[in-house]
C-alpha cells in the first residue's frame, strides 16, 4: 500500500512537472506569436515610386516570412518636409508596440542638428532596425576637362560647373565641403530633376562634374560605357 501510494505521489509529481514544462512552453509560444494575426505598418516619409518607397515595399513582402506569427505588413506614404512629418508622427503618435516602423530620409539627424523648427523628435531615441546600403561619396569630372586633380580645382581661375538636384543632394553638400575644407570652389548648377538629367548635361558639356553616391555609379549605364571609353575621371 505504502509503496503504491508513494508511487502515485511520484506519478502525480511527474505529471505536474510535465504540465508545468508544457505550460512554460505554451507561454513561450504565445510570446513568439505576438505578431500572429497582427499588422505591421511601415510609414514612409516619401511619395510612392522612389527608392525609399520601393525598398519599404519590397521589405514588407519579405520580412513577414522571418517573424514568428507571420504578421501582415502594410506601407503607408506620409510625405512632407523631407520626411520630418512622418518622423514626428511615428515618434510622438504611434503606439510603442512593435507594430509601427518608419522609413525616413537618411539625413534626418541633420534636420535636428540645424534645429529645424518642425523637428519634434530626438533622433538618438529612435531604434534602428537596419538599412540596405552604404553609400560613400564620389566626385566625377569629364576626363577632357582641365580638372585632373584636387589641386587643379583649387587653382582654377574659373571654377568648374557641377550639377545638383537641390540643396539636400549629395552633389550640393559635397561642393560646400570641398570649398570649406580645401578652398576648392565648384559652381553648383542646381535644379536638375534627377541624377540622370545631370549625367546627360555632362555628356552635352553644359557642366563638367557631379558629386554623387558611389553605388549607382557602377554596374549600370551610362557609367559602364563612360568607363570603357574613359569619358570620366574620379577625383574622389
Amino acid at each position, binding site marked *: 500500500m505504502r509503496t503504491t501510494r508513494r508511487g502515485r505521489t511520484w506519478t502525480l509529481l511527474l505529471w505536474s512537472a510535465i504540465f508545468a514544462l508544457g505550460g512554460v512552453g505554451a507561454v513561450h509560444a504565445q*510570446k513568439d506569436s*505576438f*505578431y500572429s494575426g497582427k499588422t505591421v505598418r*511601415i510609414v514612409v516619409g516619401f511619395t510612392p515610386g522612389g*527608392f*525609399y518607397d520601393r525598398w519599404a515595399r*519590397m*521589405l514588407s513582402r*519579405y*520580412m513577414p*516570412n*522571418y*517573424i*514568428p506569427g507571420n504578421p501582415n505588413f502594410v506601407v503607408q506614404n506620409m510625405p512632407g518636409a523631407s520626411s520630418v512629418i512622418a518622423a514626428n508622427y*511615428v515618434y510622438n503618435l*504611434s503606439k*510603442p*508596440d*512593435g507594430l*509601427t*516602423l*518608419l*522609413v*525616413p530620409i*537618411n*539625413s534626418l*539627424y*541633420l534636420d535636428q*542638428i*540645424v534645429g529645424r523648427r518642425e523637428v519634434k523628435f530626438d533622433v*538618438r*531615441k*529612435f*531604434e*534602428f*532596425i*537596419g*538599412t*540596405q*546600403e*552604404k*553609400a*560613400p*561619396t*564620389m566626385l566625377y569630372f569629364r576626363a577632357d576637362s582641365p580638372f585632373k586633380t*584636387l589641386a587643379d580645382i583649387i587653382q582654377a581661375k574659373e571654377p568648374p560647373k557641377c550639377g545638383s538636384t537641390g540643396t539636400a543632394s*549629395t552633389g550640393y*553638400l*559635397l561642393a*560646400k*565641403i570641398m570649398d*570649406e*575644407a*580645401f578652398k576648392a570652389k565648384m559652381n553648383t548648377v542646381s535644379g536638375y530633376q534627377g541624377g540622370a538629367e545631370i549625367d546627360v548635361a555632362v555628356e552635352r558639356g553644359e557642366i563638367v562634374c557631379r558629386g554623387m*553616391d558611389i553605388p*549607382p555609379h557602377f*554596374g*549600370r549605364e551610362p557609367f559602364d560605357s563612360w568607363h570603357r571609353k574613359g569619358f570620366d575621371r*574620379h577625383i*574622389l
Partner: protein
Amino acid sequence: MGDAPTLFELMDQFKTPAVMRGVARVILASGDFGRPMLAGPGNPPERIKILREAYARAMRDPGLIEEAKKGQMDMEHTPGEELQAVMKELMNQPPDVIERVQKVLAD
C-alpha cells in the same frame, strides 16, 4: 573606384583641420544610413530584436536579392545595432563641429 583617393585621404594629404573633418563626417554620413528603417522610442526590446532579425534575414533571402538586382537597387546590409552606434557618434560631436555644420548647412 580605381586609384581615386577618398575625401578623407585628401584631407590627410591637405592637412585639413580636425573640425572640418568632423563637419565632412557628420554631413556625408547620411549616405551610411541608406534607406533606413526605424522604430519609435519605447518599443519592447524583444520585438525590436525580432524586427532586426527579420530585416537581416530578408536581406539574405534569394528572392529579395534577385528582385533588387533586377530593379538596380544597390545592397549592402548594415544591422540596426551598428546604425544606432553611428548615430550616437554623429550626435556626440564637439560643439565647434556642430556649430560649423550648422553654418555650412545654413548658407
